[in-house]
């Protein structure tokens, strides 16, 4: 049955058009006005078209298509079902804002020529769309690798800087470790039939052992892309290295392709998941979220801070995934649908607000050429557009009502509160502890966001040159405003969003949250029933605005609105400079102190008698010391031992051959 026969063709047309735009940029790679001023805006329109097409296709039955490209007898199987349509909507909406911003962002004479960058950028977009569409392992891996490679080139746009080369290499390495695991996972899922289409994988019934092996491989492989603990190390390196629109695209959308992959394997290809997979996801997800939040609070580089915040959000998404798996494993489908809705909702929210924040850091970076929080401050005065839109992103990222970030956190906490009905007593006992962890993460996110916004945009400028900062250009503003508006809409109309998401749990679990019906009251979000729990962001926002406006009018009416400007009071201390404000290190100090065991911290404190006092704190990611360095050491040692064999003299190699021959002869004799 194909209700909208043209949907998948339309999506493919957008993909083809993106590739064409990328190639068109090659025609005039140095013509800045053509690439940035014409091609990127057109590509942004295509993003909106993609979102509209996918949104229209979301409620309908899956459509399949065979694309005869690639190797002989190995065509691309494509399929557009609710899950892929949802992630295509996320891709389209986020990329529209990011691309239009990118049109105004890139400056002549920076890194790669604009035309070549445009090609990489659009291959990246097209590859992400193909990942969502792929319906066999071959097409999936081709798209997945195209995505990894194109993003690697984008990360290393300023490839002459050694630090960026290192970040790019690390990213490529971990992407490929993950890709190997995904490949192995598909190998397990096809169950020795030799048929690598997803349709065949769906039809297989694996034994619990092999199904678990498949899940663990997928969790590891996609986790490497998502940045779960301990595979997160590339994120804080690659994000500061990449240009800001690329960071936004990677953090906002590419991380979601990994979540898409996990959901696809767990709920679609593997059939019914086992409950303990969910526990694995819950534990790893919560650890990732807590780690990300704590480390974000200690960062002093604004993009690195956002990268850790992305790790935290991915952790929350994985927690929701784990909860959905646990509920599905116990056949508690309505609750599984609730947890899955929370997961998907958080995916789209994070795509919007994190892209918005990354873009805002891009504007700040261009206006000040500073990435270090310790050298910023007071930018709200000179960059009101960027500051205003970033404030919305900050509120959403902190998960506060009435923003979109709060809705998904609310849904997640609601699904935690239902776990009392689980049959397993140990799980029942563990779940409150998990809920406590999630709440702690949400509260820490607030801390991080106050630090982010307060240090960059508020206070006095910490450097004199900041007074010359100029606000974003009009294309950049358009991108920022687009994402801001989406954040606000996603926050104020959760009922509509959830109704749009509902076909996905209905397709994957066999039961949606709404069961085809509408939520009775369009303004009140009550996933179970209003007596159990309800939330209405629109009502809260309207009431709060009404109160604020009323108070404003009443104060003016009965009292006065007189204001005088004077020097700040500051407890009467006469000499106060911008250096006396909290730095980023200072603001993160309480967190560093409370969570000290988590950090590997080196501190150099000056004494009162130092002639040249120096203060230095460096924080190291414990994953490096406890995991990566030992693995690197072991690999190096092994290869050095193997290297002992290589003597570079033909006589010795002949000796090896002779000895091998002798050994083989001996073996065959025995």
């Amino acid at each position: 049955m194909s209700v909208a026969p043209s949907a998948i063709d339309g999506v493919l047309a957008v993909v083809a058009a993106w590739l064409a735009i990328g190639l068109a940029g090659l025609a005039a790679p140095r013509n800045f006005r053509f690439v940035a001023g014409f091609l990127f805006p057109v590509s942004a329109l295509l993003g909106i078209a993609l979102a509209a097409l996918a949104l229209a296709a979301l409620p309908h039955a899956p459509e399949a298509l065979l694309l005869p490209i690639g190797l002989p007898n190995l065509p691309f199987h494509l399929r557009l079902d609710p899950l892929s349509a949802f992630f295509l909507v996320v891709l389209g909406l986020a990329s529209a804002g990011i691309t239009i911003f990118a049109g105004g962002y890139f400056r002549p004479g920076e890194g790669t020529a604009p035309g070549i960058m445009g090609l990489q950028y659009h291959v990246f977009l097209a590859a992400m769309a193909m990942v969502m569409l792929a319906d066999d392992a071959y097409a999936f891996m081709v798209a997945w690798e195209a995505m990894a490679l194109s993003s690697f080139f984008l990360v290393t746009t300023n490839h002459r800087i050694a630090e960026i080369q290192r970040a790019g290499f690390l990213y490529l390495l971990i992407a490929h470790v993950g890709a190997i695991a995904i490949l192995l996972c598909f190998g397990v899922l096809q169950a020795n039939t030799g048929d690598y289409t997803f349709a065949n994988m769906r039809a297989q019934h694996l034994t619990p052992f092999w199904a678990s092996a498949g899940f663990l491989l997928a969790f590891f492989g996609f986790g490497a892309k998502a940045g779960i603990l301990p595979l997160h190390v590339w994120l804080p390196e690659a994000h500061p290295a990449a240009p800001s629109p690329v960071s936004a695209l990677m953090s906002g959308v590419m991380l979601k392709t990994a979540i898409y992959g996990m959901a696809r394997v767990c709920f679609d290809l593997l059939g019914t998941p086992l409950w303990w997979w969910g526990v694995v996801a819950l534990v790893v997800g919560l650890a990732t979220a807590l780690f990300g939040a704590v480390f974000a609070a200690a960062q002093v580089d604004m993009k690195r801070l956002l990268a850790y915040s992305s790790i935290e959000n991915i952790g929350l998404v994985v927690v929701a995934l784990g909860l959905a798996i646990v509920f599905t494993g116990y056949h508690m489908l309505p609750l599984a649908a609730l947890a899955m809705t929370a997961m998907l909702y958080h995916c789209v929210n994070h795509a919007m607000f994190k892209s918005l924040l990354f873009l805002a850091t891009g504007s700040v970076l261009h206006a000040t050429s500073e990435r270090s929080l310790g050298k910023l401050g007071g930018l709200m005065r000179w960059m009101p557009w960027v500051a205003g839109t970033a404030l919305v992103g900050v509120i959403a990222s902190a998960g506060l009502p009435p923003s979109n970030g709060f809705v998904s956190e609310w849904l997640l906490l609601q699904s935690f509160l239902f776990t009392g009905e689980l049959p397993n007593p140990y799980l029942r006992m563990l779940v409150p502890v998990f809920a406590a962890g999630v709440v702690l993460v949400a509260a820490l996110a607030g801390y991080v966001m106050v630090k982010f916004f307060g240090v960059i945009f508020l206070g006095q400028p910490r450097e004199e040159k900041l007074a010359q900062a100029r606000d974003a250009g009009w294309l950049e503003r358009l991108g920022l405003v687009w994402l801001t508006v989406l954040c606000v809409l996603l926050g104020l109309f959760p009922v509509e969003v959830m109704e749009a998401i509902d076909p996905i749990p209905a397709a994957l679990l066999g039961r949606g949250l709404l069961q085809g019906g509408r939520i009775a009251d369009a303004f009140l979000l009550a996933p179970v029933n209003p007596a159990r729990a309800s939330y209405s962001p629109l009502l809260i926002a309207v009431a709060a605005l009404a109160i604020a406006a009323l108070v404003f009018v009443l104060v003016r009416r009965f009292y006065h609105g007189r204001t005088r400007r004077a020097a700040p009071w500051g407890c009467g201390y006469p000499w106060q400079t911008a250096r006396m404000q909290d730095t980023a290190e200072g603001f993160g100090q309480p967190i560093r102190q409370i969570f000290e065991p988590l950090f590997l911290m080196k501190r150099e404190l000056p004494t009162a008698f130092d002639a040249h006092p120096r203060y230095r704190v460096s924080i190291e990611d414990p994953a490096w010391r406890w995991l990566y360095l030992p693995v690197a050491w072991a690999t190096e040692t092994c290869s050095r031992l193997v290297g002992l064999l290589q003597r570079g003299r033909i006589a010795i190699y002949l000796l090896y051959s002779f000895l091998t021959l002798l050994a083989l002869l001996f073996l065959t004799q025995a």
Partner: protein
Amino acid sequence: MNLEGVLAQIAAMLVALVGGPLLAGWVNVCRAWLQNRTAPPLTQPLRALHKLFWKESVMAHGASPMYRIAPYVVFSCMLLASMIIPTLSTNLPLAPAADAIALVGLFALARLFISLAAMDVGTAFGTLGARREMLVGFLAEPAFLMVLFTASLISSSTSLATIVSSLAHREFAVLPSLAFAGVAFTMVSLAENARIPVDNPATHLELTMIHEALLLEYSGRHLALMEWAASLKLFAYSCAGLALFLPWGVAEANDRRALAFALPVLAAKLAAGGFALALIETILAKMRIFRVPEFLATAFLLGVLALLVHQLLGA
């Protein structure tokens, strides 16, 4: 939504607006009695607000629009929070808009704005206050949610109105989980309302202040709104505590007689709660700021313990 509901909602709002400053005044009166001082009049906070509204607002040179917006946002968050909590009646028209989780979210939104406003002028004390406020907040918020979750699991709902009516109609018994939650709640509300032993509402000593450091640059009407919001927060926290631990006497219908009965009951409960707060503040000493995380972590753990006790023993 009917007319009676709207009237009850307006009544709840007015009770909060007047009750907040009166409660703060009552705590001051009790504290003065306990410390053998002559007490200020009960209405002193209301008079102070009136005075502040008349005064000119002095703004620092570098203050951005954030500084002017924040008092209005903080005030409307706090007023909204105290309108959502079932103070007089469990049948308020605004109550379905926010459940227990959204209530904590509203408090957190206010905290975000008050901290950002404190960082806005860029003085050393403002940022210091913002950092400390966020430190208290990020530990107190989860602890408060744990308390609310315990009550939510007992009454299998996160809607505050349902929690109150189901707790009020339950057979009276001291549940161990609620006892843990009660201790946790007391600790959290002391911290959140800038009370001894976490903060001292009467101090301007640079090294110890949290709440006052946030408001240091405010004056005139902006300060009045911030102070009013602080007293509304005290009122909202007290009412939330009463709703969870002393849920009896809240009207379930919006007719006038029930509301007229609920008001003196609320006043009596608040008076008792205010006296208890003054007693705590009199017999405890303020602790060092480095001790605050331990204090709040204890509250958080007690909250988790309450949840675990409920899950394991069903009590």
